[in-house]
Protein backbone atom coordinates (compact mmCIF):
# COMPACT_ATOMS: atom_id res chain seq x y z
CA UNK A 1 0.00 0.00 0.00
CA UNK A 2 1.17 3.52 -0.77
CA UNK A 3 2.76 4.95 2.43
CA UNK A 4 0.59 8.07 2.27
CA UNK A 5 -2.62 6.02 2.04
CA UNK A 6 -1.41 3.79 4.83
CA UNK A 7 -0.86 6.84 6.98
CA UNK A 8 -4.37 8.13 6.22
CA UNK A 9 -5.83 4.70 7.00
CA UNK A 10 -4.09 4.74 10.38
CA UNK A 11 -5.41 8.25 11.06
CA UNK A 12 -8.95 7.10 10.24
CA UNK A 13 -8.57 4.05 12.52
CA UNK A 14 -7.30 6.27 15.34
CA UNK A 15 -10.24 8.66 14.89
CA UNK A 16 -12.72 5.78 15.19
CA UNK A 17 -10.89 4.20 18.14
CA UNK A 18 -10.60 7.45 20.08
CA UNK A 19 -14.19 8.51 19.51
CA UNK A 20 -15.40 5.03 20.50
CA UNK A 21 -13.35 5.21 23.68
CA UNK A 22 -14.70 8.69 24.47
CA UNK A 23 -18.33 7.77 23.93
CA UNK A 24 -17.78 4.46 25.73
CA UNK A 25 -16.39 6.20 28.82
CA UNK A 26 -19.16 8.84 28.78
CA UNK A 27 -21.94 6.25 28.56
CA UNK A 28 -20.21 4.16 31.23
CA UNK A 29 -20.05 7.19 33.54
CA UNK A 30 -23.69 8.06 32.87
CA UNK A 31 -24.99 4.50 32.89
CA UNK A 32 -27.27 5.21 35.85
CA UNK A 33 -28.92 8.07 33.97
CA UNK A 34 -29.36 6.13 30.74
CA UNK A 35 -31.52 3.53 32.46
CA UNK A 36 -35.10 4.51 31.81
CA UNK A 37 -36.34 3.27 35.18
CA UNK A 38 -35.40 1.95 38.60
CA UNK A 39 -36.08 -1.70 39.36
CA UNK A 40 -38.07 -2.50 42.53
CA UNK A 41 -34.86 -3.92 44.05
CA UNK A 42 -33.10 -0.59 43.53
CA UNK A 43 -36.04 1.19 45.16
CA UNK A 44 -35.92 -1.25 48.09
CA UNK A 45 -32.18 -0.64 48.43
CA UNK A 46 -32.86 3.09 48.73
CA UNK A 47 -31.15 4.01 45.46
CA UNK A 48 -34.14 5.92 44.12
CA UNK A 49 -34.52 9.50 45.41
CA UNK A 50 -37.62 10.30 47.48
CA UNK A 51 -40.07 13.04 46.39
CA UNK A 52 -38.47 13.50 42.98
CA UNK A 53 -39.79 12.48 39.58
CA UNK A 54 -38.58 8.91 38.93
CA UNK A 55 -39.62 5.90 36.90
CA UNK A 56 -40.12 2.43 38.31
CA UNK A 57 -40.38 -0.59 36.03
CA UNK A 58 -41.22 -4.24 36.45
CA UNK A 59 -44.00 -6.79 36.24
CA UNK A 60 -47.45 -6.20 37.67
CA UNK A 61 -47.94 -8.77 40.46
CA UNK A 62 -50.81 -11.20 39.77
CA UNK A 63 -53.83 -10.40 41.90
CA UNK A 64 -52.44 -7.11 43.18
CA UNK A 65 -54.59 -4.74 41.10
CA UNK A 66 -57.18 -2.89 43.20
CA UNK A 67 -59.51 -0.47 41.45
CA UNK A 68 -61.47 2.19 43.30
CA UNK A 69 -65.20 1.92 42.58
CA UNK A 70 -65.90 5.65 42.33
CA UNK A 71 -62.69 6.98 40.77
CA UNK A 72 -60.12 6.00 38.13
CA UNK A 73 -57.63 5.33 40.90
CA UNK A 74 -55.78 2.03 40.59
CA UNK A 75 -53.34 0.48 43.03
CA UNK A 76 -50.97 -2.32 42.06
CA UNK A 77 -47.62 -3.86 42.95
CA UNK A 78 -44.67 -3.90 40.59
CA UNK A 79 -42.05 -6.60 41.04
CA UNK A 80 -38.74 -7.81 39.64
CA UNK A 81 -39.36 -11.14 41.44
CA UNK A 82 -37.02 -10.13 44.27
CA UNK A 83 -38.66 -7.02 45.71
CA UNK A 84 -41.89 -5.22 44.91
CA UNK A 85 -43.12 -1.63 45.05
CA UNK A 86 -46.70 -0.41 45.37
CA UNK A 87 -47.86 2.11 42.77
CA UNK A 88 -51.03 4.23 42.82
CA UNK A 89 -52.26 5.86 39.65
CA UNK A 90 -55.21 8.09 38.93
CA UNK A 91 -55.80 8.00 35.21
CA UNK A 92 -56.45 5.88 32.15
CA UNK A 93 -54.18 2.85 31.85
CA UNK A 94 -52.78 1.69 28.49
CA UNK A 95 -54.55 -1.19 26.72
CA UNK A 96 -51.72 -3.64 27.33
CA UNK A 97 -51.75 -3.03 31.08
CA UNK A 98 -52.57 -6.31 32.85
CA UNK A 99 -51.47 -8.59 35.66
CA UNK A 100 -48.24 -10.36 34.85
CA UNK A 101 -47.31 -7.77 32.18
CA UNK A 102 -44.48 -5.25 32.24
CA UNK A 103 -45.06 -1.60 33.13
CA UNK A 104 -43.03 1.55 33.59
CA UNK A 105 -44.60 4.04 36.01
CA UNK A 106 -43.46 7.68 36.22
CA UNK A 107 -44.10 9.35 39.54
CA UNK A 108 -42.87 10.35 42.97
CA UNK A 109 -41.70 7.88 45.57
CA UNK A 110 -43.15 8.78 48.97
CA UNK A 111 -41.45 8.21 52.32
CA UNK A 112 -43.93 5.33 52.85
CA UNK A 113 -42.43 3.51 49.84
CA UNK A 114 -45.49 4.00 47.62
CA UNK A 115 -45.04 5.52 44.17
CA UNK A 116 -47.73 8.04 43.22
CA UNK A 117 -47.65 7.78 39.44
CA UNK A 118 -48.50 10.54 36.98
CA UNK A 119 -48.06 8.26 33.96
CA UNK A 120 -48.13 4.49 33.50
CA UNK A 121 -46.68 2.96 30.33
CA UNK A 122 -47.07 -0.66 29.27
CA UNK A 123 -43.87 -2.51 28.42
CA UNK A 124 -44.38 -5.51 26.18
CA UNK A 125 -41.97 -8.38 25.72
CA UNK A 126 -40.23 -9.60 22.57
CA UNK A 127 -42.70 -12.43 21.93
CA UNK A 128 -45.01 -12.24 18.94
CA UNK A 129 -47.37 -15.09 18.09
CA UNK A 130 -50.85 -15.75 16.76
CA UNK A 131 -53.60 -16.17 19.44
CA UNK A 132 -53.95 -19.90 18.60
CA UNK A 133 -50.25 -20.50 19.30
CA UNK A 134 -50.49 -18.60 22.59
CA UNK A 135 -53.51 -20.73 23.56
CA UNK A 136 -51.72 -23.95 22.66
CA UNK A 137 -48.68 -22.87 24.68
CA UNK A 138 -50.87 -22.06 27.67
CA UNK A 139 -52.54 -25.45 27.43
CA UNK A 140 -49.16 -27.20 27.23
CA UNK A 141 -47.95 -25.23 30.24
CA UNK A 142 -51.07 -26.11 32.23
CA UNK A 143 -50.59 -29.79 31.44
CA UNK A 144 -46.92 -29.60 32.32
CA UNK A 145 -47.88 -27.96 35.61
CA UNK A 146 -50.26 -30.79 36.52
CA UNK A 147 -47.72 -33.55 36.04
Amino acid sequence: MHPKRKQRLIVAAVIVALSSATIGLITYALRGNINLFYSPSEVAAGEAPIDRQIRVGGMVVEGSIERASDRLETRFDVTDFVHSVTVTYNGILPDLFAEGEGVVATGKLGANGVVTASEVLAKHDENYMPPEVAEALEKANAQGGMQ
Partner: protein
Amino acid sequence: MWRIIHQFGSPPWVYRFCDRVIPWLFPITVLALLAGSVWGLLFAPTDYKQGDSYRIIYIHVPAAVVALAGYYVMALAGLVSLVWRIKLADTAMRAAAPIGAAYTAIALITGAIWGKLTWGAWWVWDARITSMLILFFLYAGVIALFEAYENKTVAARACAILSLVGTVNIPIIYKSVDWWYSLHQPASIKFTESSAIDASMLYPLLGMIITFYALFALLMMLYLKRSLTEDYARSAWLHKRLTA
Protein backbone atom coordinates in the same frame (compact mmCIF):
# COMPACT_ATOMS: atom_id res chain seq x y z
CA MET B 1 -9.87 -9.10 -7.31
CA TRP B 2 -8.29 -5.62 -7.35
CA ARG B 3 -9.57 -5.05 -10.86
CA ILE B 4 -13.16 -5.65 -9.75
CA ILE B 5 -12.73 -3.21 -6.87
CA HIS B 6 -11.07 -0.66 -9.12
CA GLN B 7 -14.04 -0.76 -11.46
CA PHE B 8 -16.21 0.70 -8.69
CA GLY B 9 -13.98 3.77 -8.76
CA SER B 10 -14.51 4.31 -12.45
CA PRO B 11 -17.43 6.65 -13.24
CA PRO B 12 -18.21 5.24 -16.72
CA TRP B 13 -18.27 1.69 -15.36
CA VAL B 14 -20.52 2.60 -12.42
CA TYR B 15 -22.82 4.61 -14.70
CA ARG B 16 -23.20 1.63 -17.00
CA PHE B 17 -23.68 -0.71 -14.04
CA CYS B 18 -26.53 1.49 -12.68
CA ASP B 19 -28.02 1.73 -16.15
CA ARG B 20 -28.13 -2.03 -16.40
CA VAL B 21 -29.39 -2.84 -12.90
CA ILE B 22 -32.04 -0.14 -12.38
CA PRO B 23 -34.48 -1.32 -15.09
CA TRP B 24 -35.02 -4.67 -13.37
CA LEU B 25 -34.34 -3.72 -9.75
CA PHE B 26 -36.99 -0.96 -9.90
CA PRO B 27 -40.01 -3.17 -10.78
CA ILE B 28 -38.82 -6.00 -8.51
CA THR B 29 -38.56 -3.65 -5.53
CA VAL B 30 -41.97 -2.08 -6.18
CA LEU B 31 -43.60 -5.52 -6.52
CA ALA B 32 -41.83 -6.84 -3.41
CA LEU B 33 -42.95 -3.77 -1.42
CA LEU B 34 -46.55 -4.34 -2.50
CA ALA B 35 -46.41 -8.10 -1.89
CA GLY B 36 -44.70 -7.70 1.49
CA SER B 37 -47.19 -5.06 2.65
CA VAL B 38 -50.18 -7.17 1.62
CA TRP B 39 -48.65 -10.24 3.25
CA GLY B 40 -47.85 -8.41 6.47
CA LEU B 41 -51.01 -6.31 6.68
CA LEU B 42 -53.62 -8.83 5.50
CA PHE B 43 -52.32 -12.38 5.68
CA ALA B 44 -49.98 -12.52 8.69
CA PRO B 45 -51.92 -13.56 11.83
CA THR B 46 -52.88 -11.06 14.53
CA ASP B 47 -50.76 -10.97 17.65
CA TYR B 48 -52.14 -12.57 20.84
CA LYS B 49 -51.47 -9.44 22.89
CA GLN B 50 -51.23 -6.46 20.58
CA GLY B 51 -53.89 -7.53 18.10
CA ASP B 52 -53.56 -5.79 14.75
CA SER B 53 -51.50 -2.84 15.94
CA TYR B 54 -48.31 -4.95 15.87
CA ARG B 55 -48.52 -4.92 12.04
CA ILE B 56 -46.64 -1.62 11.97
CA ILE B 57 -43.61 -3.88 12.68
CA TYR B 58 -43.50 -4.56 8.92
CA ILE B 59 -42.51 -0.94 8.29
CA HIS B 60 -40.87 0.03 11.57
CA VAL B 61 -38.31 -2.77 11.93
CA PRO B 62 -37.14 -2.93 8.27
CA ALA B 63 -36.74 0.88 8.21
CA ALA B 64 -34.73 0.82 11.45
CA VAL B 65 -32.53 -2.11 10.34
CA VAL B 66 -31.63 -0.48 7.03
CA ALA B 67 -31.15 2.92 8.72
CA LEU B 68 -28.36 1.30 10.78
CA ALA B 69 -26.88 -0.66 7.86
CA GLY B 70 -27.07 2.44 5.64
CA TYR B 71 -24.93 4.30 8.14
CA TYR B 72 -22.16 1.74 7.67
CA VAL B 73 -22.47 2.20 3.89
CA MET B 74 -22.02 5.94 4.36
CA ALA B 75 -19.11 5.54 6.80
CA LEU B 76 -17.39 2.98 4.57
CA ALA B 77 -17.71 5.32 1.58
CA GLY B 78 -16.31 8.04 3.85
CA LEU B 79 -13.33 5.85 4.74
CA VAL B 80 -12.60 5.09 1.08
CA SER B 81 -12.90 8.76 0.19
CA LEU B 82 -10.61 9.74 3.07
CA VAL B 83 -7.88 7.15 2.46
CA TRP B 84 -7.95 6.53 -1.29
CA ARG B 85 -9.34 9.93 -2.36
CA ILE B 86 -11.76 8.40 -4.85
CA LYS B 87 -14.25 10.98 -6.01
CA LEU B 88 -16.98 8.42 -6.55
CA ALA B 89 -16.78 7.46 -2.86
CA ASP B 90 -17.66 11.08 -1.96
CA THR B 91 -20.72 10.79 -4.16
CA ALA B 92 -21.71 7.46 -2.57
CA MET B 93 -21.34 8.99 0.89
CA ARG B 94 -23.50 11.96 -0.09
CA ALA B 95 -26.06 9.61 -1.62
CA ALA B 96 -26.38 7.49 1.53
CA ALA B 97 -26.99 10.47 3.85
CA PRO B 98 -30.48 11.63 2.73
CA ILE B 99 -31.67 8.05 2.12
CA GLY B 100 -30.50 6.98 5.56
CA ALA B 101 -32.07 10.07 7.11
CA ALA B 102 -35.39 9.19 5.47
CA TYR B 103 -35.24 5.60 6.76
CA THR B 104 -34.42 6.86 10.26
CA ALA B 105 -37.30 9.35 10.11
CA ILE B 106 -39.68 6.56 9.05
CA ALA B 107 -38.46 4.38 11.94
CA LEU B 108 -38.93 7.25 14.42
CA ILE B 109 -42.39 8.21 13.16
CA THR B 110 -43.77 4.66 12.96
CA GLY B 111 -42.16 4.01 16.35
CA ALA B 112 -44.02 6.98 17.85
CA ILE B 113 -47.34 5.70 16.49
CA TRP B 114 -46.66 2.18 17.70
CA GLY B 115 -45.50 3.52 21.07
CA LYS B 116 -48.74 5.42 21.53
CA LEU B 117 -50.75 2.27 20.83
CA THR B 118 -48.86 -0.24 22.95
CA TRP B 119 -46.93 1.69 25.60
CA GLY B 120 -49.30 4.62 25.92
CA ALA B 121 -46.85 7.38 24.96
CA TRP B 122 -45.75 8.95 21.67
CA TRP B 123 -42.25 9.63 22.85
CA VAL B 124 -40.16 8.36 25.74
CA TRP B 125 -36.48 9.21 26.23
CA ASP B 126 -35.43 5.59 26.41
CA ALA B 127 -31.93 4.62 25.31
CA ARG B 128 -32.93 3.22 21.93
CA ILE B 129 -35.21 6.07 20.89
CA THR B 130 -32.64 8.66 21.99
CA SER B 131 -29.74 6.96 20.18
CA MET B 132 -31.96 6.60 17.09
CA LEU B 133 -32.65 10.35 17.23
CA ILE B 134 -28.88 10.93 17.41
CA LEU B 135 -28.54 8.75 14.29
CA PHE B 136 -31.01 11.05 12.52
CA PHE B 137 -28.96 14.10 13.59
CA LEU B 138 -25.77 12.41 12.32
CA TYR B 139 -27.32 11.85 8.90
CA ALA B 140 -28.69 15.40 8.88
CA GLY B 141 -25.27 16.63 10.07
CA VAL B 142 -23.49 15.02 7.12
CA ILE B 143 -26.00 16.60 4.69
CA ALA B 144 -25.62 20.04 6.31
CA LEU B 145 -21.84 19.83 6.67
CA PHE B 146 -21.40 19.05 3.00
CA GLU B 147 -23.44 22.09 2.02
CA ALA B 148 -21.54 24.31 4.47
CA TYR B 149 -18.28 24.19 2.48
CA GLU B 150 -17.59 26.00 -0.76
CA ASN B 151 -14.82 23.55 -1.69
CA LYS B 152 -16.37 20.13 -2.29
CA THR B 153 -13.13 18.19 -1.65
CA VAL B 154 -12.75 19.74 1.80
CA ALA B 155 -16.47 19.19 2.42
CA ALA B 156 -16.16 15.49 1.60
CA ARG B 157 -13.20 15.15 3.97
CA ALA B 158 -15.10 16.78 6.84
CA CYS B 159 -18.18 14.63 6.16
CA ALA B 160 -16.06 11.48 6.04
CA ILE B 161 -14.59 12.24 9.47
CA LEU B 162 -18.05 13.01 10.90
CA SER B 163 -19.50 9.78 9.53
CA LEU B 164 -16.55 7.76 10.86
CA VAL B 165 -16.95 9.26 14.34
CA GLY B 166 -20.68 8.54 14.20
CA THR B 167 -20.17 4.79 13.67
CA VAL B 168 -19.81 4.56 17.46
CA ASN B 169 -23.56 5.12 17.69
CA ILE B 170 -24.54 2.03 15.68
CA PRO B 171 -23.57 -0.68 18.20
CA ILE B 172 -25.04 1.54 20.92
CA ILE B 173 -28.43 1.58 19.17
CA TYR B 174 -28.24 -2.15 18.53
CA LYS B 175 -27.26 -3.16 22.08
CA SER B 176 -29.11 -0.38 23.97
CA VAL B 177 -31.99 -2.66 24.94
CA ASP B 178 -29.58 -5.18 26.49
CA TRP B 179 -27.24 -2.73 28.19
CA TRP B 180 -29.82 -0.51 29.91
CA TYR B 181 -33.37 -0.71 31.20
CA SER B 182 -35.46 0.66 28.36
CA LEU B 183 -39.06 0.61 27.23
CA HIS B 184 -38.07 -1.28 24.10
CA GLN B 185 -38.08 -5.05 24.48
CA PRO B 186 -34.99 -7.15 23.63
CA ALA B 187 -34.52 -8.33 20.03
CA SER B 188 -37.17 -10.76 18.69
CA ILE B 189 -35.16 -11.97 15.70
CA LYS B 190 -32.26 -14.05 16.94
CA PHE B 191 -29.42 -15.41 14.86
CA THR B 192 -28.14 -18.17 17.11
CA GLU B 193 -31.34 -19.52 18.68
CA SER B 194 -34.99 -19.74 17.69
CA SER B 195 -36.65 -16.33 17.29
CA ALA B 196 -39.21 -15.01 19.77
CA ILE B 197 -41.52 -14.18 16.87
CA ASP B 198 -43.70 -16.88 15.33
CA ALA B 199 -42.60 -18.13 11.89
CA SER B 200 -45.90 -17.04 10.28
CA MET B 201 -45.09 -13.45 11.32
CA LEU B 202 -41.32 -13.71 10.87
CA TYR B 203 -41.25 -14.60 7.16
CA PRO B 204 -43.13 -11.51 5.93
CA LEU B 205 -40.90 -9.45 8.25
CA LEU B 206 -37.70 -10.92 6.78
CA GLY B 207 -39.18 -10.36 3.31
CA MET B 208 -39.79 -6.70 4.10
CA ILE B 209 -36.28 -6.28 5.54
CA ILE B 210 -34.74 -7.65 2.33
CA THR B 211 -37.05 -5.41 0.27
CA PHE B 212 -36.03 -2.34 2.25
CA TYR B 213 -32.39 -3.22 1.56
CA ALA B 214 -33.20 -3.51 -2.15
CA LEU B 215 -34.97 -0.14 -2.01
CA PHE B 216 -31.89 1.38 -0.38
CA ALA B 217 -29.67 0.01 -3.16
CA LEU B 218 -32.10 1.24 -5.80
CA LEU B 219 -32.25 4.75 -4.35
CA MET B 220 -28.44 4.82 -4.08
CA MET B 221 -28.09 3.89 -7.75
CA LEU B 222 -30.63 6.48 -8.87
CA TYR B 223 -28.79 9.13 -6.86
CA LEU B 224 -25.38 8.03 -8.19
CA LYS B 225 -26.61 8.10 -11.78
CA ARG B 226 -28.05 11.55 -11.34
CA SER B 227 -24.93 13.04 -9.76
CA LEU B 228 -22.68 11.36 -12.34
CA THR B 229 -24.77 12.99 -15.06
CA GLU B 230 -24.26 16.33 -13.33
CA ASP B 231 -20.55 15.93 -12.57
CA TYR B 232 -19.55 14.56 -15.99
CA ALA B 233 -21.92 16.62 -18.13
CA ARG B 234 -18.99 17.63 -20.37
CA SER B 235 -17.28 14.23 -20.56
CA ALA B 236 -16.97 12.36 -23.82
CA TRP B 237 -17.95 8.99 -22.31
CA LEU B 238 -21.25 10.32 -21.02
CA HIS B 239 -22.13 11.94 -24.35
CA LYS B 240 -21.34 8.70 -26.09
CA ARG B 241 -23.44 6.77 -23.61
CA LEU B 242 -26.45 9.11 -23.87
CA THR B 243 -26.44 9.39 -27.65
CA ALA B 244 -25.76 5.70 -28.26
